[in-house]
């Protein structure tokens, strides 16, 4: 059975948090779920983490104890030490012979020297790396990380991506939510979400190739309604353009949102 969600719709009262979202969670692959606030990233990741929310559609997940979830801004116990946090996960997942792996994870995260420090006393980046290490400790089949790199400095971000990539290289399906497109460029597969709906999905190359029209770097916009600033210059989307320059995932995300807004009018 393939893991993933199919035709998933989630409502909170009158608000549609997710609308008809389908996504496979492929083993050995990093999936980036990209969108701004209110896009539905957290709802999708909570469903993927097996947290029961009423929904329509189907959800296929690995069995109990085979999923790790790191929530946004959390995932560590502030009043336990770094080592105690790892111990807690080992106990919760009933892990045997975990100490060497815990040491290795903390070492790679560059937080091994803080083993006796309370997690609440770590820097933001260190806390996120501890949360990531805790997520990886049980060697889950599915690793779900919500905004784990948000607000994290570039050096810690590199450490975190090393952990993320190592989990995928070890065969796990990894889901990473982010609002930054440059982060999404690092993933094997990308899902662009906006207002609960999927704007685009596939490998970064597929997502770029599927964009309608062209985006060109120009000094003055031809049509300001479909242009945006890039430094002193502009990026101009031409829906019927045929020959444009290279396109980034950021361009695709902006164009997809523009298309959605046009459709709504």
């Amino acid at each position: 059975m393939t893991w993933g969600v199919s035709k998933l719709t989630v409502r909170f009262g009158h608000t549609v948090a997710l609308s008809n979202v389908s996504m496979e969670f492929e083993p050995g692959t990093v999936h980036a779920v990209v969108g701004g606030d209110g896009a539905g990233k957290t709802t999708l990741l909570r469903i993927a983490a097996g947290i029961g929310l009423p929904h329509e559609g189907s959800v296929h997940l690995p069995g109990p104890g085979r999923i790790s979830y790191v929530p946004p801004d959390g995932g560590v116990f502030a009043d336990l030490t770094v080592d105690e946090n790892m111990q807690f996960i080992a106990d919760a997942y009933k892990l045997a012979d975990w100490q060497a792996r815990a040491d290795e994870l903390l070492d790679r995260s560059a937080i091994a020297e803080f083993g006796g420090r309370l997690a609440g006393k770590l820097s933001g980046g260190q806390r996120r790396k501890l949360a990531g290490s805790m997520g990886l400790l049980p060697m889950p089949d599915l690793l779900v990380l919500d905004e784990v790199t948000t607000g994290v400095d570039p050096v810690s971000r590199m450490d975190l991506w090393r952990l993320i990539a190592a989990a995928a290289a070890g065969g796990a399906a990894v889901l990473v939510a982010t609002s930054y497109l440059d982060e999404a460029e690092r993933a094997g597969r990308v899902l662009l979400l906006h207002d609960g709906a999927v704007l685009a999905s596939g490998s970064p190359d597929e997502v770029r190739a599927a964009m309608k029209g062209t985006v060109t770097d120009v000094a003055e916009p031809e049509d300001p309604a479909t242009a945006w600033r890039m430094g002193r210059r502009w990026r101009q989307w031409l829906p019927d353009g045929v020959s444009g320059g290279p396109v980034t995932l950021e361009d695709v995300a902006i164009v997809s949102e523009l298309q959605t807004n046009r459709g709504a009018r």
Partner: protein
Amino acid sequence: MKPVSVLGVTRQFGDFTAVDNVDFEIDPGEVVGLVGANGAGKTTLIRMILGLLEPTAGSVRLFGKAPSREERRRIGYVPQNLGLYRDLTATENLEFRAEAFGSHHVGRVEEFDGLVGDMSLGMQRRTAFAAATQHDPELLVLDEPTSGVSPLSRTRLWNMIRERAEGGAAVLVSTHYMDEAEQADRLVLMSRGKVVAAGVLDEIIGDLTVVEVNTEHWDIAFAALDTGSRLITLAGTSVRVLGEPLDSVANELRTAGLEADIRTVPATLDETMVLLDS
């Protein structure tokens, strides 16, 4: 007069040097990105520019003078947490701020004028920007101004920022995200309190390179190279190794019995920050 001149500025807290002999200037109409790791000294430097903290050595000049209340009125500042009253409407926030600044002009909100707490983050960010710019500041200081919003929402914010710059304002944007840094005219890269590189993006990256490994089996290549304290990361299905010569990466892969396309490629800004930090 330059809107901002930072002249040999050092700031110590006890034995800790947060900012170490930093120099830079911003011209009117220029957008400068201040980038670096957390703990790089960005926040301390901004506090000194805002006149909230005295340098231990060197001096900060705003419009040619020491930061005083008078000069501070010429600044618009948007902190990371936005500094809005969540239980007031957007217009009430703007009116309140206008009065505090003694400004006769109250900015306009474009759309939904409900309580700030009920707004999307994109709307909150645009409201905070409107509040910080309604007194027509000549210097704007913005801390990760587009963090967390949708890509289209981000373009609207950058359109607003650029419009201010083209109207003559100097803009300082503090960030550690490439999506924001690439919008600046010029970057100042800080690490451990010092400026380690400055210039346009290409100048910052300079001739720094990383080793990129491409194979059908990125996972095997990654597992083989993911040892010790090596700086290693992933870009799609490419494995990238920082701060190590191509030969040593090639040798290690050969030992692991893996065939791969191995080449030296220019570093990204993220990778540059890591390389200059280590």
